[in-house]
């Protein structure tokens, strides 16, 4: 009797040991996540087992995300982080050098790249992404939604004083010089024009700019930090997820929305000259998966999948009460609305012309 117990225990131990080894050395033997494609993984390993991701997401969010991917696949991801504009500049420079370095681009500007630079590919899980958040030509897929909203320093501005419409801003001369906007917010300008009409929209924005001396700054992350620190009282526009992230860290910042709410997407695209194409395909599938987006939602990113709960859970309920205007601009449109932005808000941290004309 004892012998049979001992024998069973020994087998059980052996079995447990073997399972531990199996899980440790080849995690894919465990229940595979929804995004796993073993055929693609095998190919990726044959191609070198690496993945180079260029992304605009903060390392604190992106690295844990890709760590999960690496742990499950055994691939090695190199994450290169910079702002959208800098990533686009880097990609252009690398194109000149004929040394494309990226496999996956994960930023809000994939759709602005020349078409031949981005591969057409549909990750199997992309069918779960709403049509509005993906490219019909299969070059990019929305990973998270960048809803544009306003933010304020909750220590220095009373919630009751917050404007209900953009016209209300003109009733607050005390905020003169303390309101800021990022120099790249041309999508928001387009949404305001679409909502109010070109003439009224421009008149309104010009009035806000001139009466409140809106500061034009660089970097949405820095804008959220500086609003929380009190350098600015209000962000005239910022990505809601960044305001949420800053708030989740315990900073005195909160956000609100008014009509219209511009939305565009943090997208994933695969390089047509990817050095690790199979790893890139697997990575893209991971980003549009429930697991990938659940991980991102933890830090306040608003998922594009409807089956992933955002954080805080009611964020979409608040946003959806407003008029939402999706803005996906081509490179050409982007330039046009950039010019429009600069015409209204000045060139901010960039060029300033005609100052001498007076």
């Amino acid at each position: 009797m004892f012998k049979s117990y001992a024998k069973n225990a020994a087998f059980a131990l052996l079995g447990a040991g073997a399972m531990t080894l199996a899980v440790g050395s080849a995690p894919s033997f465990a229940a595979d996540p929804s995004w796993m494609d073993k055929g693609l993984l095998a190919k990726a390993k044959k191609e070198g087992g690496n993945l180079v991701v260029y992304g605009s997401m903060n390392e604190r969010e992106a690295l844990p995300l890709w760590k999960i991917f690496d742990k499950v696949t055994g691939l090695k991801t190199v994450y290169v982080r910079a702002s959208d504009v800098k990533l686009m500049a880097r990609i252009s420079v690398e194109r000149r050098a004929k040394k494309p370095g990226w496999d996956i681009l994960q930023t809000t500007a994939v759709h602005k790249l020349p078409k031949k630079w981005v591969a057409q590919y549909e990750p199997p899980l992309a069918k779960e992404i709403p049509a509005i958040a993906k490219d019909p030509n299969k070059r990019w897929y929305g990973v998270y939604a960048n809803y544009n909203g306003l933010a304020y320093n909750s220590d220095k501005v009373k919630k009751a004083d917050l404007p209900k419409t953009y016209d209300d801003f003109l009733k607050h001369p005390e905020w003169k010089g303390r309101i800021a906007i990022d120099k790249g917010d041309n999508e928001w300008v387009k949404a305001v024009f679409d909502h109010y009409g070109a003439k009224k929209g421009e008149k309104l924005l010009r009035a806000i700019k001139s009466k409140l001396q809106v500061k034009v700054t660089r970097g949405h992350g820095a804008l959220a930090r500086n609003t929380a620190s009190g350098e600015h009282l209000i962000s005239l526009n910022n990505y809601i997820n960044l305001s949420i992230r800053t708030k989740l860290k315990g900073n005195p910042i909160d956000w609100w929305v008014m009509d219209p709410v511009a939305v565009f997407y943090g997208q994933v695209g695969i390089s047509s000259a990817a050095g690790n194409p199979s790893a890139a395909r697997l990575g893209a599938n991971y980003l549009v998966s429930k697991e990938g987006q659940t991980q991102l939602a933890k830090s306040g990113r608003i998922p594009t999948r409807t089956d992933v709960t955002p954080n805080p859970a009611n964020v979409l309920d608040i946003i959806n009460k407003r008029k939402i205007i999706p803005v996906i601009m081509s490179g050409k449109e982007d330039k046009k609305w950039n010019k429009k932005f600069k015409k209204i808000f000045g060139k901010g941290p960039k060029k300033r012309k005609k100052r001498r004309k007076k």
Partner: protein
Amino acid sequence: MSSLPTIPMKKNALMRFSEWLTVSRFVIIACALLCLWLVFVPLASLLYVAFAEDTPEGPGAFTFDNFINAYTVDHLWNLVENSVIFAIGSSALTLVVGVAIAWVVERTDAPGRSIFHGLSLIAFAIPGLIIAMAWALTLSPNIGWGNDVLKSMFGLTEAPFDIFTMGGMIWVLSSHYFPLAYLLMGPAFRVLDIRMEEAAVVSGAKNWQVTRRVTMPLLKPALLSTLLLIFVRAIESFEVPLLLGQPSGINVFTTEIRDAIAEAPPEFGYSSALGLTLLAICIIGVYFYRRATRHAEAYATITGKGYMPTPLRLGVWRWPVTIMTGLVFVLALGLPLFTLVWQSFYFKTVPNVDLIKDFTLESYVYILEYPVFLSGLKNSAMLGAMSATIVVFLGFVMAWIVQRTRMKYAWTLDAIAFIPIAIPSVIIGASILFAYLILPIPVYNTIWILLIAYVTMYLPYGMRFASGGMIQIHKELEEVAEVSGATLMQTFRRVLMPLMSPVLMAAWLYIFVMGVRELTASLFLAGPTTQVLGTISLTLWEEGGSFGNVAAISVIQIVPLVMIVGLMRYMENKVSKRG
């Protein structure tokens, strides 16, 4: 048969050449060629790109469009206006403060002079980016703790200072550069023969007359050369305009060039055309600097008398002068350092005794866990060490060629090695990027492209140090070695190197410090795996890292740099004792 006679001729020429090409000559020629390559390749690429059409695949057909685009009158005027006001203001203020400190340290018996000298070296070692960040946190009109303190002290409703203005920029750059002005002016004060001033006093001149008619004319060449050098450094400075000028719309050449290349798509042609304008301004400045320095050397013959200058006795003014000088350092160095240290341990931006309990190491933990920090630290240290070693070696060899050989055009090497002083870092970074995107040399995105930039930038400093050191060593010593049968290599290794080692070591440390704190050129050249401390710090600042994180990464950089400064001071003492 007829071709036969040519074979022995070729052979002879080859043999003669191989006999002539000893190892030492090979090294000398290689060094000279390397210098030419380092200096002219980026300049050539800058010119080429400026006159070529900008296409997504690279430079296209010949065009003037880049110049037409860049030289729109209003736009150019705005940049020139801002750049020149900033440079003139900064160089003037820097000179005034630097000269005052030099006078106190070198010509008076005020207590604490040695400390002031050490503090100047520390101020020099701290990266400009860090200083600019610290001042933004100190004197921002909205969140600067300095303004808050003044407001509560004097019951003000408005912040008395706004650092995001031209005045703020000028103050910050001057507070960072005045130690450099002091270090440049110090030797001029040291060698000034006090007997001339005494003679004037004996002849009945009043103090102001002595200053105006004796001291100032004697110092004029050194003053002028320092002013010009600081002007060039100010007009090419990048960090202060980026952090403090751009938020309020004040653009200068350097920020404009960087923006043009960081755009999507990058405007290479436009930035090259602008770069050429900035280069022209700097070359004019350096041309006059060289002229002024030539005069300074003529005046320096006064020093060949072997005397010890008597310090001016300040009497009752000894301590007041020391306190005033100390206050300058407290303001210029103490305030920003205090801000950074405080901010690195606390989340609140305004220091307050009540907050002491909120002490946290979270920012340091964040930085130490920050994914690219350790690789950035390693890259910066490696680049600093490698560039210092190469530059010191090149400087040593070239200084020897210039001073010891009878080569007819040896002086041109000195001139070539000096050219990079006129090329702003922003242009070196951009032009090296252009060059190695065109050339089939696979250094893009590697640490080697950064090394090329660093060596190019610091070449003039290596040359100056080595030339200065070599002048001190009489040629006789090498001649004795040669007569005793030593080869050139043996003479280098056993005579020159040991004698020059303190100078070379000081040069190495100086260049190492500059390499570790480098930002501007690295911004253009650092790749995904070759980020350096400067680019990481700037990314944290620009992309919304918390102020605590930014302060912590700054403090982590400053501590080792201060230790290196201690080492520099030790080497300095060693050199001066030998002198």
